[in-house]
């Protein structure tokens, strides 16, 4: 898969992961000591921790040296200034 497409998926994944931390419709209460807080608060707290763990793990996976190609390579690296075309504002 092209590196730019893979990065797009990564971006969408982070956005979804962040969006999931919003307690959409997490209603109700739990029993016992846990019931001191409503479900949606536990949900938000737990998802925060999960988000942190996943991001920490992804840093390890996505930031391997081989995942960062030379900037001008053929696999999605941004072109250098010398290879830029003239700016077209139309």
């Amino acid at each position, binding site marked *: 898969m092209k*590196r*730019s497409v893979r*990065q*797009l998926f*990564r*971006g969408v994944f*982070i*956005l979804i*992961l*962040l*969006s999931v*931390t*919003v*307690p*959409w*419709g*997490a*209603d109700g209460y739990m029993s016992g*000591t846990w019931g*001191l*807080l*409503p479900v*949606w*608060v536990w949900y*938000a*707290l737990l*998802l*925060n*921790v999960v*988000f*942190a763990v996943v*991001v*920490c793990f*992804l*840093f*390890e996976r*996505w*930031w391997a*040296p081989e*995942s*960062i190609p030379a*900037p001008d390579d053929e696999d*999605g*690296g*941004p*072109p*250098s*200034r010398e290879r*830029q*075309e003239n*700016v*077209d*504002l*139309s």
Partner: protein
Amino acid sequence: MNSESASSLFQVGNGLWFFFILYSLILLGIGWLGNRASSSEASLSDFYLSARSMSFWVLLPTLYATQYSGNTLVGFAAKAYRGGFSTLVVVTFMMGVVGFYLLYAPRLFALSRRYEFITTADYIQHRFGNRLLSTSVAVSGIVAMANFIISNLKAIGVMTSAATGGQTPAWVGICFFALVILIYETLGGLRSVAWTDVIQGFVLFLGCIAIFAAVIYEAGGVGSVLKDIHQAAPSFWEVPSASQQVEWWSTLMIISIGIALYPHAVQRIYAARSASALKNAFQVMVYLPLFTTLLMLSVGWIGRTRFPALSDGESEGITLKLLTTLATELPSIQWIVFIFLAAVFSAIMSTVDSALLSISSMLTQDLYRVARPKTPESILTRFGTCSSFVVMIICVLFSIFINQSIYKMIEIKLELLAQIAPAVFLGLYWKSLRAGPVLWGFVAGIGISLYFVLGSQILPWAAIPTKPMGIHAGLLALGVNLLLVIGLQLFSSSNKQSHSKKKPFSTSEA
């Protein structure tokens, strides 16, 4: 504030100036050490990026101290007091910032090593080769950071006055701390700023933990606190409505993206010694909101049980109010007020010095150097130092003299910074993306943000909402910006392809 707590605070205030001066001397000493460690050949890379030599042990505290401002200790607790558990979004967006770093920092770091970038606009210019775009990015960064400095200086003035029981006017605190920051920042550039951040970050981190521990202990533990909160503020238990959840999501997105693109955060990415130092710093950073932001939110929630009926304005001082009451009841732990004040001043100073240095770097590298490309680095560095003085003087004057209602009109930060996101995020990975679409998207994004944010202040009769459909104006603007970038790029690419297909035909015709 009752008379007892006010007098207790004043007692603290008497010793406070001794602490202020001692703390400032330590920071100035570090600034001087930073100056001694600087290369004898003054270069922008050395001054603004600490010669790209920052290890994990400096990167982590400097990223941490910079990301958390005085708002963490004062503003977030007040928000929690008023907004209840729905302010948990604050913890998430502080983590979300690190999530967005993940999307661009690895590649940008690699590029910065190869092409020796100093500022965000350096990358934009390198990538798109469009001076109008890179200058616009630099100017929006300067405006956003100047706003950041003014709001933090205002906060330092208010805190100085409050901490000394009103004995010291706000302007004295503003001028004193602005001068200290200016001296150590101009002495050693990022090296001094980052080294002072190590101390400031440490004080902030320990301060949050100590304050939380003292408050929760005094309140009788977690179980007792939750029961008290349930009685004092049953509304905290209500599930956020659909519109509140949309606003939660919108806040999460705009703040995570905006903070991830702070010019001084990008500066630290460039300044890392190695990719692994940077990666490890981010891996730790993602957990720190749990030990900083969440604890300060808890202080705000607990404050609601002790002082259930504060006005919005009064609730801004909830942490200090809680701690001074605590110190009055238990004089043996008066030190906790000191810890709080030390943490607040550390957080504010570490933010102001970083923002000031990033403005100085943008003025020097993105504006002055472009106008005078043959200027030697030593002169540029001197220009950078002088620009820091000028910017700080302007910001001090604004923070002392500008009326709060006028200030609200010009206060626009994250809305501007978020508009840089397509240029950075897409530019790094979309090889054929050209400058034209990015520039038009950026202009549209800035225009829409200004329309909603300033329009609602300047044209009250027009009833322009600051959050149309419950979504932050900056996020809405970013959506339009992104659509324009992608749409114009795809449209121009398909046009080009059809032109190139027609070419052989027209040539043979000729």
